[in-house]
């Protein structure tokens, strides 16, 4: 047991070491504050701000949309349907299957949706695909918490004369720790995924200013730079990976901080 724990820990530390040792030297302010200029992919001037901003835009909108879909789904499964409802069991199974579908499939599916809607590779396309990818993650992890909420909470609130809307607010408060975990998990899954955005979001050297423009993303920035023969560009891929890791870490810490603050008190 201790052997396997140590093995996996050392693998993690080694990955971090490689990213750091190769990425840190080429990580500079210029790298994260500029968009690529001509010849960037041959080792010339510029940075990966396009990919950073692209990834952040993409994940932000995807998380917001997914939350707006997932929370009502979880509410319906847990509080409208009865606990032993067959439909709820079927729905949960479906979400588990969706959870396991490889992200490239979502990318391809998102691509067909885009064609159907007449969209080109764009931020919107990427948002649709990433939302599809993370909705099952979200539903399942919020559901884990919602299942534990006693039906008495609903009854206690209602017996005080609360309307349905007020009851829902109380339930959402109880769900908050679950919601923040869900956001965290889905940000982790969504922001680091290359396959979903490959067809749908495209890649560009500029920062998107509208939903219909294509956008760069960090995973693809890593992918393109890593496949370059120029060593300097390869090192930049590692620093992009480092940036991605830092973003995920920062989000994870702030999510923990906020969920702890929220769960304390106040309406």
């Amino acid at each position: 047991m201790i052997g396997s724990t140590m093995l996996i820990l050392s693998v993690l530390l080694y990955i971090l070491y490689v990213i750091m040792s190769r990425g840190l030297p080429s990580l500079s302010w210029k790298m994260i504050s500029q968009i690529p200029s001509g010849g960037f992919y041959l080792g010339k001037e510029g940075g990966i701000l396009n990919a950073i901003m692209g990834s952040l835009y993409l994940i932000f909108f995807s998380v917001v949309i997914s939350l707006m879909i997932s929370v009502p789904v979880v509410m319906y499964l847990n509080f409208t349907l009865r606990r032993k409802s067959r439909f709820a069991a079927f729905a949960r199974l479906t979400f588990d299957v969706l959870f396991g579908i490889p992200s490239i499939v979502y990318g391809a599916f998102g691509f067909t949706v885009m064609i159907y809607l007449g969209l080109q590779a764009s931020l919107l396309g990427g948002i649709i695909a990433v939302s599809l990818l993370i909705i099952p993650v979200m539903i399942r992890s919020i559901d884990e918490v919602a299942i534990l909420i006693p039906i008495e909470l609903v009854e206690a609130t209602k017996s005080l004369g609360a309307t349905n809307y007020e009851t829902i607010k109380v339930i959402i408060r109880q769900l908050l720790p679950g919601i923040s975990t869900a956001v965290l998990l889905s940000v982790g899954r969504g922001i680091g995924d290359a396959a979903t955005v490959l067809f749908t979001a495209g890649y560009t050297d500029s920062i998107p200013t509208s939903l219909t423009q294509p956008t760069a993303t960090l995973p693809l920035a890593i992918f393109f730079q890593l496949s370059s023969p120029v060593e300097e560009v390869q090192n930049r891929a590692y620093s992009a990976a480092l940036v991605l890791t830092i973003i995920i870490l920062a989000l994870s810490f702030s999510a923990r901080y906020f969920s702890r603050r929220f769960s304390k008190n106040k309406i």
Partner: protein
Amino acid sequence: MELIISPSITDQQKPKVMNISHSHKSHIVVRNLNLYIQDHHILKDINLIIPDKSITCIIGPSGCGKTTLLRTFNRLHDDSVDIKISGKLFVDGEDIYAKGTEVTHIRKKMGLLAQRPCSLPMSIIDNVAYGPRIHGIRGRRKLYEIARHQLMAVGLWDEVKDRLKSPASKLSIGQQQRLCLARGLAVEPEIILGDEATSALDPISSKTIEELFVTIKDKYTVVLVTHTLRQAKRIADYVAFMYMGELIEFGTADQVFNHPKNKLTQEYINGGFS
């Protein structure tokens, strides 16, 4: 055996079942109430007038419909699609199962204590202030005063006054049950419903809750479902005995416990079955 019986009743002659409180004004009047869950007939033609300002205990063996009956009083069955209810149930003269009756003001008239206390996911003080707040009372000072008053009424104030802002879930289960009572009282109900409110508590907490029921019955109509006969004997003014979905006997505690009319009641009280 100790009985607490209001003097006006003990002096009376053996009252006729069901008509016991005609002289009183009554908050809850049940007329020919039937309840079905899918095809099962759970409550069979219940007729009951619950006397005001006293403690009525509903007793009976498990599965006889005690809790189901209690939950009809504030329409907690509303969300269950396979439950059908017929008959009339008047709260303050208003038929609450009539079409178009708005439910929140009926529920506001009743505080519910569940078997296991269920605190809301907020601080101690917000738990008590929640009810008044959703019914439109604003102002920190005012809400604080209400919370303080109700927490005092349930004897919790001294225990929690230094940590009003900490989460209610940190309280012990007995304290939480008292908090739930304070939360229920804060919306100024007329009726307190208790669904085996002490069964999950330790003996000392449950004694505290019982004593609270006795104290508040001057102001509120208390209806308790209880599984323990001894508790009913300790605190009930009136007792309703149910068996297999029927209301077998209703009367003062003295009458039901000491001179039961029905053979079933007698058997149950003597511990023939439980």
